[in-house]
Structure formats: C-alpha cells, structure tokens
C-alpha cells in the first residue's frame, strides 16, 4: 500500500510504506555504481572515486546538519583528523594502511567527542561560531607542527605504502572499488541509522527540541551521539582520501573544507540518505564542466547554486521526495 499523493510532503510516512523500498533504493545505487564502472571512461571513473569519498564526508555532515538540525561550520577538523590520523603514522612511522586507517577513525572519534562535549554547551549561531573557531584552531595546529605535517605544502604517501593485502590502491580500478566499499558501508549504515529509535529521535530534536525533551528523550546525549557519528564518518572520508589519493595537506583542514559539505548537502537535499551523494556529484561536475567553458567557472557554479536554492530549496532529493517519492528516507 502506498501513501496517497500529497501526504507528508516533508517527511516519509514511516510505518505505512513497505519497508523493503528503502533497502531496495540503497542496494540499487550501490549496484548501479558497480555496473557504471565498467561502462564509463577512465576519466569519469577517477572522478567518481573521488566523489564517492567526498560523498562519505557529506553523508557524515548530513547526520548532524540534515537529521539533527545542528549547523556546524567546523567539520574540516574531523575530516583532517581522519586524514592526519592515517597520514602521519604512515608518513612518519611507516605504518601499514589497515592500522593507520583505524588510527584515522580513532582520531576523528576522539576529536569529535571532545568538540561535541564542549560545543554542545551552545546552540544556534553560537554553535556555528564555536565549531568554526575549533576548526580554525585545528588548521593552525597543522601549520604550527609544519615540521611533521609539512603545512600547506603537505606530504605525499608513496605508492609502495598504499598496498592492502596485496591489493594496490593506486590502481584506478582498485581505488574505485575501495571508495565504493566505504561509500556503500556508510550509505547502508545511515539508511539503517535513520530508521532506528535513535535516528528518529534525532529528527524529533531537529523538529522540536523542547517537545523531544518532554517526551523523555535525553536531548544532549542524542546530540553528542550525532556529533560523534557525524565526525567519525567525516574522519573516515578524510582517512580514505589520504590513502586512496596519496596526499595530505593543510588545505583539507581549512574553512573551505568546512563549507563544502554544507553546500553538497544543501544542494542534494538535507535530511535525505541519498541527497549528499547527489549534491556531491552535481557540484563536482558543475565545476568540472564550467571550468571547461571559462576561467570564471565559480561564477557559473554560483549562479547554478542560487537558482537551485530559489527553485528547489529542499535540495534535489528533497524536491524528489516532495513531488514524487514521499517515502524517500
């Protein structure tokens, strides 16, 4: 039984729509990305590998922004925590990728737990500013320890080091499937998470925090959980980026990398499972195509963003949910 058209335009009618639709959608996307690998030319395969890793970053951001309603301007800190948590042990200590990746995850987890604990004492605009400031402090820390991090210039992780169980991650095809594995795991994880009582409570907090509290939910604990999951997933993306593309640099800790996931999520559809991916693809190719036409490519990208914000304020997936697929998770 499908819900009549026009009902629940903002949020899927959970409980009425068949529960298999959501797994089908997400499995379909992953399957599609497998198939498309064998069709697309190498240039686009390379792009897509990068997009999938960045989409993991966007999905992590979306947990906090889209589902919990907390706008962070400091997620580059978590991305960089994962990146350097993996990169520095590999670069300085000669660690192998698998334990280094766990190191990246653990770093991001600890950093997000500490930042969450401190920043959640504030809300609204203050939360945005506090997260922004912490991220700036993180960026400056990377520069301060330039002796090890090589600051802006960054460092390369050599091809010889980027081997996991005999698989060469610098090979384009292996890299693609490594990116897809991480992307698939994170997508399914989020699809599952938002259907759990924990995930539903995050949405309740986004919609009406005081009401959620007086239904007996520990709002602060749920928000902290959201920051940690969001930050750790962003860190996983940072670690994967360094590992798959062999480079870590301070740019990834800069404010620009805090703004990008916000844009991707806004364009793709905040509070939807597939929105972050759609937004990342859209913006990546928008800039890619625009830069082929003119050197003022950000002007074209900016115009497209303005138009989309006017005509699809809920993002691409948000529009899809509003117009066609009210069940979209």
């Amino acid at each position, binding site marked *: 039984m499908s*819900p009549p058209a026009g*009902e*629940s*335009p*903002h*949020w899927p*009618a*959970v*409980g*009425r729509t068949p529960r298999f639709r959501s797994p089908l959608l997400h499995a379909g996307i992953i399957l599609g990305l497998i198939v498309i690998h064998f069709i697309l030319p190498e240039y686009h395969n390379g792009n897509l590998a990068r997009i999938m890793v960045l989409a993991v970053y966007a999905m992590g951001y979306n947990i906090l922004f889209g589902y919990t309603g907390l706008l962070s301007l400091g997620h580059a800190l978590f991305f960089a925590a994962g990146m350097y948590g993996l990169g520095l042990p590999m670069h300085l200590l000669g660690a192998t990728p698998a334990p280094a990746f766990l190191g990246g995850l653990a770093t991001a987890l600890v950093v997000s737990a500490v930042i969450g604990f401190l920043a959640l004492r504030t809300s609204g605009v203050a939360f945005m500013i506090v997260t922004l400031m912490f991220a700036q402090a993180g960026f400056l820390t990377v520069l301060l320890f330039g002796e090890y991090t090589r600051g802006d210039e960054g460092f390369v992780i050599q091809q010889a080091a980027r081997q996991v169980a005999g698989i060469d991650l610098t090979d384009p095809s292996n890299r693609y499937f490594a990116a897809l594995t991480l992307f698939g795991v994170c997508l399914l994880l989020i699809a599952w998470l938002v259907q759990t*009582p924990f995930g*539903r*409570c995050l*949405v*309740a907090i986004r*919609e*009406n925090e*005081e*009401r*959620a*509290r*007086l*239904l*007996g*939910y*520990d*709002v602060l604990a749920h928000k902290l959980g959201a920051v940690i999951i969001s930050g750790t997933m962003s860190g996983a993306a940072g670690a994967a980026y360094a590992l798959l593309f062999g480079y870590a640099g301070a740019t990834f800790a800069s404010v620009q990398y805090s703004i990008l996931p916000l844009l991707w999520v806004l364009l793709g559809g905040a509070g939807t499972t597939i929105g972050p991916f759609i937004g990342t693809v859209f913006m990546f190719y928008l800039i890619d195509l625009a830069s082929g036409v003119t050197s003022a490519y950000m002007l074209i990208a900016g115009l497209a963003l303005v138009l989309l914000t006017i005509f699809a304020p809920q993002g691409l997936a948000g529009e899809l949910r509003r117009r066609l697929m009210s069940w979209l998770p």
Partner: protein
Amino acid sequence: MTAPLLSTRGLSKSFGGLEAVRDVDFDLPEGQIRALIGPNGAGKSTFVGMICGRIPASRGDVRFAGRDITDLAAHRRIGLGMAYSFQITSIFARLSLHENVALAVRRALAQPHPAAVDQRVAAVLDRVGLAGRAYQTAGELSYGHQRLLEIAMGLGQTPRLFILDEPTQGLAESEVETFKALIRTLGGETTILLIEHNMRVVMETAEYITVLDGGRRLAEGTPAEIRADASVQRAYLGSGSP
C-alpha cells in the same frame, strides 16, 4: 493511608524580585483527577513547570512515586512516568501524526519493536478519534485536532501522572465536550493534573480542586466545597466566569 503519587513541600520560584510561586505544599493521590485553578498570573504554569522539570525550583522539593526528583532533569522525570501536554500546542508539525505519537510510544516501551509501536500508536490515535488521519502531516491539522494530537502524545507515553496545561484553550464548544468525555474515561487509568480556565470543564471532570492565587495555595477541596468557598469566590469566581 498510602503515600501520594506526587507531593511538593515549600515549593517556590522567584523570577528576579517577583515570587511567582510561594511555599506551596501539594499532595496528589494516585488515580485522582485534580484540577489546578486560579486567576491569570496565579503561578499555575510555573508550578507545574517545576513539577515536570521545565523550570528549576528556587526552593522546596518535589517527590514523585516515592522519590525526591527535585534535582532531576526533565527527561529523567518523564522517564519515571510523567507526561506533560503543552499549553501552547507543541507538536512535530512536519512529521506525520503516526510519527508524532510513535516518538512518544517508543520512549515509553521497554522493547520498541516496530510492530508493537505501530499497534500502540494505532490504538492511541483511535482513542482520540484521529485514527483516519494517521499519515497526514501534523501541521496541516485544524487547531482542535492538533490539541487532540498533543493529548495523544501524552497517552502514548502511558504515564502514571498526566499533566494537562490548559488543554481546552481555544477550542470550540463541541470540541470541549469531546475533550471532557476523554478526560473522564482517562480517570480510571492514570492520575491527572489539569490546569484549566474553563470552569465548566473543571466542575464536571475534576474530583478535587486546588486553587492558587498570587503564587500561594488559597484553597483545596471538592468541586462543591470550592464553589462554596468565600475566599475563592472573592479571588477568582466572583471576578470572572461563574
């Protein structure tokens, strides 16, 4: 005599220099429908705010179900079996009715299995007469239906104490009738603390009435006693509706 479900001793709240609630001693036995009345500014909402934990008390203490909850956070108090329905409708306007109530039910169930939640949500919505609208967006409901949803969320929590803050405010006459019937049927299953301005609702539903005036407890008694109380008439009934 068994201990009351809820009791306060010397409960007080000052906002700056203003004492909104002063030294209120209050006992509510389990199973009773109690009304809390008083003129505007008598401190009713502040008083229940301190009971459910939205407002921290300046002095005094609150006991609920045998334990001191004065220093407990609001969500912990709710977890002990309280439900609070807001004076100003506070629902999840962009979510479906089903999800609104499900959020309440999930928190209350020890094992929130989806099928058990759905079943309980359906039962609660049916009880308040909104079963047919389960998958509408809550914000699209009429005001009266939103008030009913607010009640349904409270019922979904299966509370031991249900605090209703001016539930009939702004309702049409026919809706008030529906509401009175609902309150009466709830009487057998839970303890109710009802803040209400509409005297007819109070007199026809409450078993016992507490009157606040100027932040103090002015009187307490059965509806008949309160009606006959001269001080109450002076403070409240005489100045407004009969």
